[in-house]
């Protein structure tokens, strides 16, 4: 049995961190949220983003879902929601959604508080109170089956598909054997590999939805007369030896391991506990993709990178894994696991075991390199007008 010590929440879920999250509703509150978190100090993090005060209905619904999900993440012990006061988004609905899982939540309007300066000082006081309120939480024994593990890749090169992704996939298989949930995403990076994924779907409904989502992402390019080759693979991927989206996808999907695919959820939708391997339909931008899974409840993430990505997340610890020996040497202070040993003959299974041990120790409280460096990138996917058109939604 694999165990770690985490923070048991009132509704029974387990967090691997105990943070106060300062969540802005729109871009108009993002800088203030950052200032509040910076002044309030350790344990308080913010989730600044670029969503405007008004968005088309479908885009707004997605933003609301993500912000609510972030506040509900079990790593969040308490939340402070900050807003300007002109947002169309349902602030009370978001706060209520967070409170529904038993998480203490406060709201703060910049207009009501009397502008930026007064909001920062009021926000710091509230964050201090929330910190005191959750300070009594103690880690207790939890089972690996309670973990939702987000896996991501970014800055991929040829080593990603050979070393780091299969090794992280092996760790996913281990977690799923222990009863947990693993989730990978980035639908554009299923293109060219969807037939492999489709064969692994546990049921016909999941298979149908997966293929439909891949078709939709490809159709958006098709509809616009866009040549996907311009953006996929990225210039960096190409420099690293990846030639086509098919090649990138076939390497990318190995990070999810070899377990049956139990389901596919929308961007930021709740992920099941004890759910096996589940996909999330997200765009191909890694920071947004990680945020979608953290909004879905993932407490911890692994992020493979060949070329050397540095990004983290303000809510979930991110474990960096590289299969490129040069990146491991050059960027040691951003990398947690060296998978380049696979190229020298270390079995994938052995590196997978190291990643799984790292996962459990990070869940247990060991900080990742991204946490040590204060890397807390955050971005929410905004549904674009052409996607809304493809979905038949008002723009």
């Amino acid at each position: 049995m694999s165990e770690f010590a985490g923070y048991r929440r009132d509704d029974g879920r387990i967090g691997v961190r105990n943070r106060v999250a300062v969540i802005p509703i729109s871009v108009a509150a993002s800088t203030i949220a950052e200032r509040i978190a910076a002044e309030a100090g350790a344990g308080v993090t913010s989730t600044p983003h670029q969503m405007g005060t008004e968005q088309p209905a479908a885009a707004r619904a997605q933003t609301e879902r993500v912000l609510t999900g972030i506040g509900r993440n079990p790593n969040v012990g308490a939340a402070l929601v900050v807003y300007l006061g002109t947002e169309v988004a349902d602030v009370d609905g978001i706060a209520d959604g967070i409170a529904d899982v038993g998480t203490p939540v406060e709201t703060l309007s910049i207009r009501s508080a009397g502008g930026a300066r007064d909001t920062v000082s009021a926000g710091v006081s509230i964050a201090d109170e929330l910190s005191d309120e959750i300070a009594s939480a103690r880690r207790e024994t939890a089972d690996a089956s309670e973990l939702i593990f987000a896996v991501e890749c970014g800055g991929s090169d040829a080593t990603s598909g050979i070393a780091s992704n299969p090794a992280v996939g092996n760790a996913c298989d281990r977690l799923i054997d222990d009863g947990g949930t693993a989730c990978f995403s980035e639908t554009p990076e299923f293109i060219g590999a969807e037939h492999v994924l489709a064969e692994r779907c546990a049921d016909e409904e999941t298979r149908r939805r997966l293929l439909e989502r891949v078709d939709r992402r490809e159709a958006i390019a098709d509809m616009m007369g866009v040549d996907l080759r311009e953006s996929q693979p990225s210039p960096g991927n190409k420099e690293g030896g990846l030639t086509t989206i098919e090649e990138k996808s076939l390497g990318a999907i190995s990070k999810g391991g070899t377990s049956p695919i139990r389901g596919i959820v929308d961007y930021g939708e709740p992920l099941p506990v004890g759910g096996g391997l589940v996909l999330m339909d997200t765009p191909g931008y890694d920071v947004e993709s990680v945020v979608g899974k953290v909004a879905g409840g993932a407490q911890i993430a692994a992020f493979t990178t060949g070329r050397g990505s540095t990004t983290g997340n303000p809510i979930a610890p991110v474990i960096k894994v590289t299969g490129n020996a040069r990146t491991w040497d050059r960027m040691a202070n951003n990398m947690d696991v060296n998978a380049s040993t696979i190229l020298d003959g270390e079995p994938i299974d052995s590196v997978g075991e190291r990643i799984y041990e790292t996962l459990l120790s990070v869940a247990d409280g060991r900080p990742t390199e991204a946490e040590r460096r204060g890397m807390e990138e955050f971005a929410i996917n905004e549904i674009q007008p052409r996607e809304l058109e493809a979905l038949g939604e008002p723009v």
Partner: protein
Amino acid sequence: MKGIVLDDRALLMVESDTVATALDDLERGTELSVAAVGSDRDRVTLTEDIAFGHKFAIERIDAGDPVEKYGERIGSASRPIEPGEWVHTHNCESDRGRGDRTAEGANA
């Protein structure tokens, strides 16, 4: 590592693949044994430098024919590719997400 290592310097993911990945910066003229794999020849001589992580053909690939890695199609040859030649965007193209082809078809 999954796959078949060629003389410690390149990797074929699946025996039936038509391209191998360089595990080091390989120089033009490097000879690699491919006798153990599904190639129609015993040795491949690199006709140009191949950078770490990049691919080269282990057999001739005709224009329009599939380029295979991971035992799957990763694109099509956009012109004939000789054994030992670097395989990348200049001679191998994706078949997916090609709105440009749809647009061309519409204009034709």
